[in-house]
């Protein structure tokens, strides 16, 4: 009797605790600085994947359309205001597209989301608030230090940090799990 009681209690309480955690963590947008979000982040896609066809078209033609959650809104504003010199390229577009893309980027930016990657990005930027590019954040550098060192030893023109999906096979869907990594010329990658 006592045994079955304890088991039932355990079976009931464990999902309850996890459920509360997920519920606390999943409140996108509001109170993203909430304390519990740092304990229980959402177990679904680690970065917001709401898509924008316009963004895919205008930006994704030349480089991987990074999910907005990889940079804070201040960075996106800076980038979108300097499209005539976009890291050496001209990436100008008509004003309506520019406004619409900027709205999409800032609404889903790292500081507007409570998801694993946005949270980590913001944390990595707590003393450097406005990076110019995704690959500059301490979060990105930490996650890629192994592969960066490898590329330095074995230069490979097929690998570019501008194209997440050359290695992260499900990057377009917002998944960056290790099991989905296939590095050209290497295969699976274990960090």
């Amino acid at each position, binding site marked *: 009797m*006592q*045994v079955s009681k*304890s*088991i039932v209690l*355990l079976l009931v309480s*464990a999902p309850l605790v*996890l459920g509360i*955690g997920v519920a606390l*963590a999943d409140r996108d947008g509001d109170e993203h600085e909430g304390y519990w979000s*740092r*304990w*229980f*982040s*959402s*177990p679904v896609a*680690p970065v917001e994947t709401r898509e924008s066809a316009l963004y895919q078209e205008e930006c994704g033609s030349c480089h991987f359309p990074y999910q907005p959650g990889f940079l804070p809104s201040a960075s996106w504003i800076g980038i979108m205001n300097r499209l005539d010199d976009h890291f050496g390229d001209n990436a100008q577009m008509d004003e309506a597209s520019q406004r619409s893309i900027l709205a999409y980027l800032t609404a889903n930016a790292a500081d507007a989301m409570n998801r*694993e990657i946005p*949270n*980590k990005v*913001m*944390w*990595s930027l*707590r*003393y*450097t608030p406005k990076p110019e590019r995704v690959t500059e954040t*301490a*979060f990105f*550098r*930490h*996650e890629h*230090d192994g592969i960066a060192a490898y590329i330095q030893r074995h230069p490979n023109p097929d690998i570019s940090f501008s194209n997440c999906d050359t290695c992260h096979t499900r990057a377009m869907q917002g998944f960056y*799990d*290790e*099991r989905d990594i296939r590095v050209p010329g290497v295969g699976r990658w274990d*960090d």
Partner: protein
Amino acid sequence: MKSQSEIKVWDPLVRIFHWTLVSAFIVAWLTEDELMSVHAYAGYLIAGLLAVRLIWGLIGTRHARFSDFVKPPTVVIAYLKDLARLKAKRTLGHNPAGGAMIMALIVMLTLTVVSGLMAYGAEGMGPLMEFYRQQASYGSEFFEEVHEFCAHVTLILVFVHLGGVALGSLLHRENLVRSMFTGRKAG
């Protein structure tokens, strides 16, 4: 149901602790670097289980107490020598080698949990993030390596533990795995 010659050895808390720990460890192992949040939940669960078990080791039932199964190294070594000659004596609770294994598992799991929480905290996640707030750095290669190392050592211990259970079961012609479910052993 209950056979006359069987007596209660493992109390419900010990058994629930054991199998919950097994499940949480498997989940944590499978989700490493994949579902980080689920991995963290499993880690929190293990941390909680360890805390409960440490307290239960002091105030629990007879065979759950550390005083019942933690023996000096000389006793453990003598037991292992006997075991090698297949002449080890049967114990009702944990045998000396089993007791040493439990302490080793508790230590390694604690180190794994703490290093994991530190590595997670360095990425701004989990309860230990506050340790890192004042530093500009992101992530901790050091604690990631320690965490991985401790987890691997723990896994090796788990296999040795399974080997010990198999050996003990064969030697004394009893099913020790079943006892961890039912809590009972032949008297």
